């Protein structure tokens, strides 16, 4: 299983909104964090989020038994460890 | 025997403090003292000349700092008091900061702060004051001491503006001014609130005549210097403040 965490601040909302539309992911909430889980890889397209670079490159709060395999101007990709 | 270097910041026309401080401190039984003075130009004791003199303070401190003194005394009482309440604390702080910034360990005192320290050590509340100043300046000194918590119901201003003249005021004039005060109910008499007005020889006779503690800018300065460097503040024939058998003063 793949799991990535985002802090609930206004700047991160577009990212969570985009990933929530993916039918393969589940979005949970622990305190002020969104937990995004999936049985496969989690992929977020940067352009579809519309966030600034500074936000994009600091949006990940935590990784549950997962690792980042891509984090660049195109996409964030998280896969099971 | 311990040796103490005393730096003196003095008005250029002052001739008394460099005379009276050595006279006083050479009577100390457990230390020797040397005196190193730096001068600020000042001829007339007027507000504008006092302000101009204070601007020379930093240079004087630089010069004296080079002599590595143990303690530095800013020896012009009225220059500080004329600048308004609390000025001696402000200036002592600035000089201490200047010295500390350059790594000097010299302690800093002022004759204005020393007079307050001496009066407090005597436990005095109501005091009499003889000053050489023009009356407006004398009023400023009175107000300064009142701000420090003293009552000054009795005071005299001899109205001598030329500072060289102040250094020549005869003792009998100072005593006459003191005699004209109503001293009943006072806790102490400041026979000279000025380091330039000669008064050292008057302190003991005045105590005998008036029956109350008498101090001067010079005896208070010596007291403060001794306390600063951790020596017993005891000197013979310099009044109650410095009497060796005096009860140890309140801090």
């Amino acid at each position: 299983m793949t799991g990535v965490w985002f802090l609930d601040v206004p700047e991160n909302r577009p990212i969570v909104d985009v990933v929530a539309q993916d039918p393969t992911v589940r979005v949970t909430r622990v305190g002020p964090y969104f937990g995004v889980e999936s049985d496969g890889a989690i992929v977020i397209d940067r352009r579809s989020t519309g966030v600034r670079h500074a936000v994009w490159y600091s949006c990940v709060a935590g990784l549950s038994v997962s690792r980042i395999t891509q984090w660049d101007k195109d996409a964030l990709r998280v896969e099971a460890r | 025997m311990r040796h103490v270097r005393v730096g003196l910041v003095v008005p250029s026309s002052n001739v008394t403090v460099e005379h009276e401080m050595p006279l006083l401190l050479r009577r100390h039984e457990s230390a020797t003292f040397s005196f190193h003075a730096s001068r600020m130009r000042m001829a007339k004791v007027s507000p504008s000349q006092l302000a101009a003199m204070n601007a020379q303070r930093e240079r004087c401190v630089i010069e004296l700092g080079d002599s590595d003194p143990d303690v530095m005394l800013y020896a012009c009482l009225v220059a500080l008091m004329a600048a308004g309440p609390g000025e001696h604390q402000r200036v002592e702080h600035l000089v201490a900061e200047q010295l500390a910034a350059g790594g000097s360990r010299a302690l800093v005192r002022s004759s204005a702060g020393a007079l307050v320290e001496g009066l407090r050590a005597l436990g005095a509340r109501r005091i009499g004051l003889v000053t050489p100043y023009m009356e407006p300046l004398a009023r400023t000194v009175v107000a300064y001491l009142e701000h420090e918590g003293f009552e000054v119901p009795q005071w005299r201003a001899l109205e001598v503006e030329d500072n060289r003249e102040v250094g020549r005021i005869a003792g009998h004039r100072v005593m006459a001014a003191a005699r004209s005060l109503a001293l009943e109910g006072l806790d102490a008499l400041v026979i000279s609130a000025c380091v330039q007005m000669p008064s050292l020889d008057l302190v003991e006779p005045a105590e005998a005549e008036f029956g109350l503690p008498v101090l001067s800018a010079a005896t208070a300065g010596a007291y403060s210097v001794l306390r600063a460097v951790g020596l017993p503040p005891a000197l013979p024939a310099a009044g109650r403040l410095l009497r060796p058998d005096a009860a140890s003063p309140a801090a």
Partner: protein
Amino acid sequence: MTDLTGRHLVRGVDHAAFPTFDPAGTVTFYRDVLGLPVVHSICAAGWGPEDHPDFIHFFFDIGNGDRIAFFYYFGLERPERLDRGDSFAQFGSDVPEYFVRSRHLALHVDSEEALLEYRRRLDASSWPVEMQLQHETIESIYTHDPNGYFFEITRALRPVTPQEDLDANLTIDALVDIVSRPGHTLDDLLARKAELIVERAGAWQEQQDAVRQNITQPSGVHA
């Protein structure tokens, strides 16, 4: 007497001090261009065991009573300049730029108008703004002062939220936990931080909600 044990007692920056070999440029930059008043100066000499030259220590007001201060030492030779750096530290070309810039002073302003006013002043001077950047939640302008010190003025795009304080604490706790592992990476930190989120974030939220409840519904008062 008040018990001060454990209390947060400091109140901002008294002064941050830097050496200068260009006091005239420094006064022009801070006092004349930025408009920070000179508020204090000390003239002194090296009287201590370390025999240093005569010097001037001078201070500019950076707001809130805080101060930036400089030392100018008379006759002290400027160290031979390597490729980059400032009056305090020089770096060879092997040292990356991000590292050289990592140590810097950032002054705070309250509004976009204030930030743009300082941008205007700098752009009209010999030290124009080199970049203007929006980070996550702040916007900053940058230049180098006459001494080569990297200088920033910044404003908040929005107030910091309570959850960001929690997040910062979880990040730092995670960092402290993993930093002794050989070869540790950001990946280790994010894995450890996910554990801390699961452990602590829920309880934190309940506590926040309880506090909010108390504020919005004072006991005994009902509309």
